[in-house]
């Protein structure tokens, strides 16, 4: 595993010291390689498509364009990347917004080095962390939506079940035990939930753009 191609990582963080520290931590790990450091969302939107990383560490609070908006725009690019949000505040709304925009996980600063590296590997492997609070929000969002013919608009019963467990505070492992499936299956479900959340979110953005209302 360590012999494999290192995971390319880009950092979008306005504080140069934090950015440097983060880059330092990443570079120290054999499995990761920092390919870009950006001080603003605008710079990231220019640099990242030119040199696409596999994982982006994105600060939510950025001067100018917000991290959430940056995520949304990056996810519209035809590049394969996973976004991990970095935030000082465990502000459920903005985290959820970021996840909706296309991020697949978040870390609360300050992070321990090991925690950061684990998260990068986790996200790269397709894992998506989801807390009960986020799960609750996802459930609420999909409940509010009206029934639609499109599959992406609705959650499958199994996904719904996973979300319910998450909302009740169960860990992935526990959910796997409860549902008689594997840890990987649970993660896949969560990945798919995230995907649907992105699609929904995009549809919403388009709808907003045309002044319509989907909710």
């Amino acid at each position, binding site marked *: 595993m360590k012999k494999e191609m290192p995971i390319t990582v880009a950092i979008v963080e306005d504080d140069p010291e934090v950015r440097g520290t983060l880059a330092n931590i990443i570079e120290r790990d054999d499995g990761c390689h920092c390919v870009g450091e950006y001080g603003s969302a605008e710079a990231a939107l220019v640099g990242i498509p030119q040199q696409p990383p596999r994982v982006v560490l994105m600060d939510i609070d950025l001067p100018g364009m917000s991290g959430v908006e940056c995520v949304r725009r990056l996810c519209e690019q035809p590049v394969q990347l996973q976004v991990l949000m970095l935030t000082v505040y465990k*502000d*459920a709304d903005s985290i959820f917004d970021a996840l909706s925009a296309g991020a697949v996980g978040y870390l609360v600063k300050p992070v321990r080095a090991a925690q950061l590296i684990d998260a990068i590997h986790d996200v790269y492997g397709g894992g998506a962390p989801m807390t009960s609070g986020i799960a609750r929000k996802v459930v609420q969002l999909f409940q509010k939506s009206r029934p639609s013919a499109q599959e992406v608009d609705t959650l499958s019963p199994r996904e719904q079940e996973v979300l319910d467990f998450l909302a009740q505070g169960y860990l992935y492992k526990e959910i796997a035990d409860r549902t008689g499936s594997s840890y990987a299956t649970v993660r896949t479900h969560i990945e798919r939930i995230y995907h649907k959340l992105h699609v929904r979110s995009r549809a919403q953005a388009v709808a907003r753009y045309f002044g319509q209302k989907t909710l």
Partner: protein
Amino acid sequence: MSLVIRLFALLFAVTAAAETSLLSNFTIRRWGVEDGLPESRVVAVEQGGDGYLWCATPNYLLRFDGVQFTKMPARQLTQPPRAAVTNLPTEVTADSVTATMTEADGTLWVGTMHGVYRWQAGAWSDLTPRDGVFPCDARCFALDRENNVWIGTSGGLLRLRRKRVTTLRSGLSVSSESVTALVADSPSSFHVGLAGLGLLAGAPGALRPAQVGTLRADTTVSSLLRGGDGTLWIGTQGDGLWRRRPDGDVSLVRLKERGGMMGRGISALLEDRNGRLWVGTWRGLMQVNDAGALVPVSYRVGEMKSAEKPLDMVHSLLEDRTGAVWVAYQDFGLVCFRPENRVERFQQKDGLPDGAILVLHEDSAGVLWIGTTRGLARWRGTERHRFTTANGLADDVILQILEDDAGDLWIGTRRGLMRVRKSEFEEIIAGRKTVMAARQLGLEAGMADEECTGRLGARAAKTVCGRLWFPTMDGIVVVDPKKIPGPPDPPRVYVEEIHANDGLMPWRGGDLRLPMGMREVEIFFTAPVFTAPERAHFKFQLEGHDTDWSRASTDRSVRYSRLAAGTYRFRVMARDRDSAWSEPTPPLTLIVPPFFWETAWFIWVATITTLALVIVIVRLYYRRRGMRELLALEHANVLERERARIARDIHDEVGAGLTEVAMLSELAHQDEAHPVQLREHLDGIFRRAHAMIQSLNEIVWAINPVNDTLESLLSYIADFAQEFLGAANLACRLELPPDPPPLAISSGMRHHLCLAVKEVLHNTVKHAGATEVHLSVTLAGRELTLAIRDNGRGFPAEAVSGPEAGRDGLTNLRARLLEVRGRLLQENVPGGGSRTVLSVAIPTDATGMEDAR
């Protein structure tokens, strides 16, 4: 005197001629269904004390004012009792008598199914179908105040109006008998000139053409005069003046001057006290001289330079008590020949009316009355007055003037006869009156034609017994002034109905208050008069609207449109044709209510309300401002406390943490050479920093108003529990409302609740020895309950109430809950474990929202 006796004899002969028709004494008018009578059969009739004539048909009681029948609320009517009558006409049997009536003078009226019979002065007269009046069965009789006889028949209501005059006719079968001249020597010896019929002689009703020499039979005799020597002077229209001596010798009076029309058309004749005959012609004044020839009269008057013969038509000649002869010309004015050979001429500038002078009359008091085509002039000495229709004359063309034995003036006009008391003129002159009271006689009095003649010389005459003879366009009208009643009493006048906006108002006298919004008022009034109801006049005034009395009119209603709100007084007065004006009716108060926005109270209320509103608004404004200030103050107070809390938290959490970090850094420096201690110190620094960030996170989360929602609180608590318990390897089970309502929770409350939960979880991890913690949140209304249950060993007995455990955890917990007025319950769960229940009411007031902002 012998004339009087003879006239009486004549009249007696007429009445004594067996049974006569009532038509000779009465004029008849019938009112039937076509006149508004609801049913033709009239079963009872009576004049009420109010002056109305009350009639009953089988089904209705009717009130009649001479013009209109008004249905009155019906009652059970009783048939008038039948009287027993004897001495009936042969065709009347007692069985057939349906009604009777006795007049004050003893005249008896008998009604039968076949006709009406009257017994008076020992003779019967009747009214039967052969008189052309049908039906004339009498169901009932009544006498009104005007002495009319009313008869109810099966075919309506009959009014029998007494003829006040007798019309003498020639007896010739001619359609019209325009009397142009008249001289009566005795009741059986008349000489009458009828237009186009020559001279007629004989008794009334049996006149025969009188042969006057070679005078054409179709001539018109315009003047007749019986001279003192018995000579009959016959003036004609175009055929000159003829003379018939008592011996029967008839001759045409010779004209001294031949040629022209002068002396051909004779219009007036006068024999003065000296026996001189004055002849008025169409072309000037003439005299018959001693030689028996007709000669023009020349005279010099006024500005004339020499004696002239004015060639103007003479209408009338008069010798007054002083012997002066007055000559009335068509245009030349009035010329007076004084006995002392002085001639005077009077024209318009001398006070003569501007019309032609038609007739002259000197009354018993020596007042000269001048009838003109422009009214009646009264000359007394040098006083000159004129009266016209404006003063109540029937007409302005005065054709005949006579004075009866009672001293009343009789005036013949184109519109009938008038009798006026001379005092009436004086009243008018004195300004006490404008309209004279007069008795008028016209068709209703029995005249065949109302128009009197006189233009061409026909003169009215008074017989020795006081009867008055008036030549008319159809016969000679004979009036006995003694039998003509004086001016009637003024009629009574009534307001009958009031309509508003074309609807009948329920009004029974007294004041009338109109319903709101009704501004169109029509008032109907009447005066019950029956002799000449169509000639009754009315004047009215609506005080508050009319400044003066209206003009006299025969209208019996008046309409007022768009009356303004207010109080009005309506009065009306009436005048019968012959009477003076009645007293005005008592004022009828009419109240037109204002629209509610016109009323004083509304204006007051509106003003007061507006004022009050302004005051309330102003006060409200200031109160609100005060409230706002108070709120702001309170708010400031809350903020103050919140700021103090945040400051305290930051000081406690961050300050203490940083101090610790600083001290640990110092220690790390000192222990640079000892790697184990150094790592411990650095580890400590990281932990403290991490904890500080956590604290800061919590503080910031709590302060940020975006998180002032229940949802945010629950999310935060859930995430915290999951993370915290996960880190402690405790299973976390959450049970939260799936979709919490959007309730606002102040930052203070959030902060305290979060810390309380944190405290509880901290204690659980630390002391309970549990493997699973169950956090459930329920919301009942605004009551938020957080229950934390574990599967550990439960609270030690002393931990729940003991001083040791309490000091550390519970006291803090209680203090926090006290801050938010929450309650705390801690208990051991049967079957193991413990449970902590935090409950708090989420305040509704805005301050909860605002104090975070």
